[in-house]
């Protein structure tokens, strides 16, 4: 079983959802991001996603755009991203990279899979790679024991969900709404229905992302999904902090709030079977 599958199974055994936390590599600095991601895991994130900063972050909202822009301006390279994965994974938390496709394509798919596996990484989340174009990556992922995670959206047809879940590994990333990344006041109302539709196609865990920012929302999503993904809210803690150590403290605090959210007993009792 992959480390990702293990993390979801462990959460399920505790009758709760898994907490998945995202932070980009290289922000506020390479060591700063490692420290923040490690703190996020220590405070309750079951799985960590490390973002690979990219020049054209099409599906990201302003918060992640700004953090990844600063990471690139600070000289963050793909090698630094792999180093970040190694440092975070070695602390014992399953760690994936979330990346736009071109940096992987340019690195070479087989080489990227090899180096990610050697760094102790568990897989890739690829928002702009379609299953139709994913053949080489799926082969490399299978060779290296990596989980290929793809996204489904509320607009995805039943046929599309079937295709996407047939190539997914580890878990299915369900976007809660039609839009870019970023914290919102309310989680998209289409999320629960989307999770149901995905469950009709696969036995993989389904995690919901986009728009989750606090304990109450985490508890709400935990009521219908196997995992709760939080990104921009963590990144905001680092962006808004007066100094790096305050940022890390704020990330730790948010992670423990969200970890409490996914363990909300009211949620656990009413939804899990």
């Amino acid at each position, binding site marked *: 079983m992959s480390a990702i599958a293990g993390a979801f199974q462990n959460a399920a055994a505790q009758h709760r959802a898994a907490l998945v936390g995202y932070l980009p590599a290289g922000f506020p600095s390479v060591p700063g991001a490692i420290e923040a991601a490690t703190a996020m895991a220590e405070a309750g994130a079951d799985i960590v996603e490390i973002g690979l900063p*990219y*020049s*054209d*972050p*099409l*599906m990201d*909202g302003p918060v992640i*755009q700004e953090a990844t*822009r600063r990471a*690139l301006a600070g000289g963050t*390279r*793909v090698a630094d991203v792999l180093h970040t994965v190694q440092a975070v994974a070695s602390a014992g938390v399953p760690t994936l990279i979330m990346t736009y*496709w*071109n*940096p*992987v*394509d*340019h*690195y070479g798919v087989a080489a990227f899979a090899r180096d990610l596996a050697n760094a102790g990484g568990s897989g890739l989340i690829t928002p*702009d790679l*379609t299953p139709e*174009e994913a053949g080489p990556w799926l082969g490399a992922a299978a060779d290296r024991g990596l989980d290929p995670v793809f996204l489904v*959206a509320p*607009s*995805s*047809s039943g046929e*599309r969900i079937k295709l996407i879940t047939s190539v997914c590994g580890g878990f299915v990333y369900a976007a809660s709404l*039609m*839009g*870019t990344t970023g914290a919102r006041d309310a989680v998209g109302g289409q999320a629960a229905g989307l999770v149901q539709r995905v469950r009709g196609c696969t036995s993989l865990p389904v995690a919901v992302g986009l728009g989750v920012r606090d304990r109450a929302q985490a508890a709400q999503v935990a009521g219908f999904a196997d995992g709760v993904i939080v990104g921009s809210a963590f990144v905001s803690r680092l962006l808004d902090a007066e100094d790096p150590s305050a940022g890390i403290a704020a990330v730790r605090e948010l992670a423990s709030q969200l970890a409490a959210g996914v363990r909300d007993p009211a949620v656990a009792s009413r939804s899990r079977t």
Partner: protein
Amino acid sequence: MSALEELTTAYLSAKADPKFQADLAALLRDYAGRPTLLTEVPRFAAEAGGGRVFLKREDLAHTGSHKINNVLGQALLTRRMGKTRVIAETGAGQHGVATATACALLGLDAVVYMGEEDTRRQALNVARMRMLGAEVIAVTTGSRTLKDAINEAFRDWVTTVETTHYCIGSVMGPHPFPVMVRDFQRVIGVEAREQVLASAGRLPDAVIACVGGGSNAIGAFHAFIPDDSVRLIGCEAGGDGLATGRHAATLAGGSAGVIHGMRTYLLQDGDGQTLETHSISAGLDYPGVGPEHSWLHDTGRASYRAVTDTEAMDAFAVLCRTEGIIPAIESAHALAGALQVGPELGADAVLLVNLSGRGDKDVDIAARYFGHVTGPAR
């Protein structure tokens, strides 16, 4: 993906519908002013090796460039899909102006994303779009040019797709855009092929067009692809020169990758990060290129060359003074290509140059470049 599937289905249905094609043909004729003229330019030709040079006058189409051909097609398609709002990206502003125009004509809401840097370079077109009722949003992310405007338009579209059509302005982006925009632009080459056969009595030796995303070039080339004797020559923005790294010559200086939902050549660094581009022409200042051009490049059916800012502005001046036509700076890259290719092909050659747009929008930049006016830029 579902939006792209919906668009593909709608486009294929429209393409096969005689009513849609008749509506589009009527708009192109009675509103856009098609067919555009083919003008022989002998005094310019004398500077280009002494053969015959014909200009396809897309500059005379309504709104001043070829962009209207594509936009009228996509605006009709928007209405057919039951959507009420159109978003677009624009670099030089020509596609934004065309979009604002078509939306005014068909009663659609228009929102145009434009890099902040380009809103300064092309302030006149910003004013035109606003006059036509469009909202212009200055994009302040990334390099603040065309690619960032495209990023913002995509971000808008994923949020608003139920009511909104993204009217991409070039033969780029995810399928079906490159094919659909090509189909709407191929009227350029279809008309020009007929016109040049009538005027010169034979096919041209070369068809020359500027290439940013590449819509006017694909439009001009497409009807000639089966004509093996006709060289297809694309002129990319060489900026300060390929060796300086300050350019936007994707095919001449780039490598294969993925950007904006397409696999194509692009300008990228060792990590696959998109490089910043430079060109005196806002409309060519794009780090990718339409995938069909990458295919024409790889198969050798078309060749691409980099034209520097200086070469383009020299050609701009030659056309102004020999023929009384002020070209867009984008199109001046194609004219510079003709000045280079003409002498290579000799005095018996027939060249067809696509004059993709007129230069009104560039008068401020050109006047400063040539020192006709001084003082602070707008």
